[in-house]
């Protein structure tokens, strides 16, 4: 099983298991309720997994509810396109949703908050 690990630089906690990758629909997302607030965990067509704070930098829309394509998600409220890797809004919009390190091991998704 391949491992995908990405890191935003500063990360605090330990890896937390959030569930099986098959619990997240392909080209979809699940909301993870955590002490830090809602986190959206996305899975794209290539089975890459990404985690962003479930809040669009524009007006706080729940990104977990958006349409996933490539390495992007379209916010369901006003259709901003947010990059799944870094949380950055696509130009010319400006803003950034916080992103979290996430990895997949043996079909299980782990998140570090």
């Amino acid at each position: 099983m391949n491992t995908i690990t990405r890191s935003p630089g500063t990360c605090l906690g330990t890896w937390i298991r959030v569930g099986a990758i098959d619990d997240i629909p392909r080209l979809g997302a699940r909301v993870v309720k955590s002490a830090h607030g809602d986190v959206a965990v996305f899975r794209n067509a290539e089975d890459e997994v990404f985690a962003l704070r479930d809040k669009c930098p524009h007006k706080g829309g729940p990104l977990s509810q958006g349409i996933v394509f490539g390495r992007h998600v379209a916010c369901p409220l006003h259709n901003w396109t947010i990059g799944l890797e870094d949380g950055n809004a696509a130009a010319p919009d400006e803003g950034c949703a916080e992103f979290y390190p996430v990895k997949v091991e043996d079909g299980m998704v782990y998140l570090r908050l």
Partner: protein
Amino acid sequence: MKKMKLVMVGNGMAGVRTLEELLKIAPDLYDITVFGAEPHANYNRILLSPVLAGELTLKDIMLNDVDWYAQNGIRLHLGKKVIRIDRRTRTVIAEDGTEERYERLLLATGSDPFILPIPGKDLDGVLTYRDIGDTNAMIEAASKYRRAVVVGGGLLGLEAANGLKLRGMDVTVVHLMEWLMERQLDQTAAGMLKASLEQKGLKFLLQKQTTAILGTPDGRPDGRVRGVSFADGQEIPAELVVMAVGIRPNDELAKSAGIHCHPGRSGGIVVNDTMQTYDPRIYAVGECVSHRGIAYGLVAPLFEMAKVCANHLAELGIGRYQGSVTSTKLKVTGIDLYSAGNFIGGADTEEILLHDTVGGVYKKLLIKEDRIVGGVMVGDTVDSSWYYQLLRDKQNISDIRDHLMFGQSHLGNSGHQGQNKAAAMPDEMEVCGCNGVCKGTIVRAIKGQGLFSLEDVRRHTKASSSCGSCTGLVEQILASTVGGAYAPQQNANKPMCGCTDYTHEEARKVIREQHLLTIPGVMRFMEWRTPNGCASCRPALNYYLISTWPHEAKDDPQSRFINERAHANIQKDGTFSVVPRMFGGVTNAQQLRRIADVVDKYAIPTVKVTGGQRIDLLGVKKEDLPKVWADLAMPSGHAYAKALRTVKTCVGSEWCRFGVQDSTQMGIDLEQTFWKMYAPHKVKLAVSGCPRNCAESGIKDIGVIGVDSGWEIYVAGNGGIKTEVAQFLCKVKSAPEVLEYTGAFLQLYREEARYLDRTVHWVARVGLDYVKQRVLEDAEGRNALYARLQYALQGEKDPWAERAATLGTLGTLGMSGASGALRHEFEALTV
């Protein structure tokens, strides 16, 4: 793989746009070198006028600075004029001896100003107006001298005159013809333009032939200009003369290399529809080319050429440039002007004319065989984009002829205070009421970011990107800022989205003809550029698949907008709203009691009666939705979907003392027949029991009105962003006929409209006559349409009942045991 060498000669807007398009689709194919004769990188030539007027500087109008070339690995030779092409060794040679070899050569040498061959043309102070060098020379002259003469009363000449006037000079425009801008305006429009420019202090001499430019008194051929003399003997003094009598394609380099150029006076490097010259390794784009005998001088066609050329350079081999119908919106002076096509008319054209001399509005449309062939507008140009689209799409206008002149938005538009004259609007006036965007913001973005298209402006400012009702105004502002560079998106051939060059119609056709059943299948077959599309094309493809192949193509929930995936409407705080279906707007005590209980049980904060005679429960948490549906035990209202929404009714003959038909029952029948029907967009129906029309049938997708002898059916109305009155389709005698005719109309809409077209948009495009022919005149076709709709709806499930049932079988303790889809959609994970 070793990269091929691409050399571009000329560093202007058309050429660089070609490179940009090329880098987008084939970033690694070429090793690119660019020669520019000017010492600057690519700037926005259209904005030279604001530079001359002192509103902007060169820095403001740069489109691609030298860093851009570096970032894209392009070798840039600035200030080096190419003087020779050696086609045998495939080398270009610059004035200073620099040589570059090429495998593909792109000529984008632009055009040269035409200089009158008259005495004195080489004197100091005689300028043309083409580039930033000319502009700077004019600015310098304006600071030293007082009197200027502009020779040429065309677009460029007037811009120059206006800029020099703003710089404080005393400016006279000399024009050979009887009226200004005779290639774009008729005499009346030109007269209005002249009057408005005279008010600003410009002077005009018409029908004057310039014969000499006068230099020093002793007649030496050097020194500073001191005046201009005309054929009639008159002389006027001037210390600056600007020649703006026209441009000519710069085809000298090509000609010297033996490449075929247009032999006529117009000149130009001859290219085919793929922008290739007679030497197939050599392409040409922009003002230097002659395509099908025409040399274009406006930016919009040049950008179209750029796109086609890039496509072929990228070896994709699709796309042809087939020429452009040009239109001109002028940006001269705060007066809105527009012209397109044949604006003079003749024996075979009909003219529709509106002329308000006091209000300063002049609109003329020329019609030939029920199609617009041209027009001129002064003062009010808000509808010009619409006319232009009708012109380009060659749309039959016989249906709308009686109100054509009053424009697309002569009534019913809301959100921008009824403004229709962009030039008259102050900068701080709001243009887009949805996103709170003022005129000044839009103008600054256009100038500062180098925007050319409506899409660009929408992306950068959000103006007109929500409800779209101010689109005409935004287009007008864009046009008055960038002038001829602006061309409205060609509606007929608009690609679905950035993922493909194919149109909605082409995608539908392929799905039908190739019997494609999945989104990845369509994307593979049509060579989508992106691995899994985007939020714009995927929902459209999903709809086309399930509407073309009902019971065969499988619905893809991940290609549906959240509302259709969750079967409820997302609200600004991320909660959802729930609208149960009440057939025909009729409810009863049991339903209302259940609704009340659900509101209490799930602490639903707001209960509201909708405009469609239903009840909206707002603020429901997503995870509660399946339970709410189970407890309501009412069908889904599809208030969240591109589907049949509501059938609004009046009480009708059962109770009403005026009612002549049982509208309530008719409404219930319609709703029970068509609910669960997905469509390109939402569909709303209404049935009234008499012509008093209490159910407002006149503004619905389908409005039915009971009359004593039967039912009248109206179609393609709309009560939304832009109020549109429904058009009469037919009158029928019985209720079953109402079902059959509306069913056939709806199926035709489902099969042929573009995704996200409301019925009004679709009918406007195809024409009511076409709809009548398919639904009224062709009885067999009507039956077949209705039968296909019934087949599609057969066995279609109520999504609420389906999900509530899964929930029921697995117990109501949370949803941990529920089916995968239900869990995935409605259950959160916790850590």
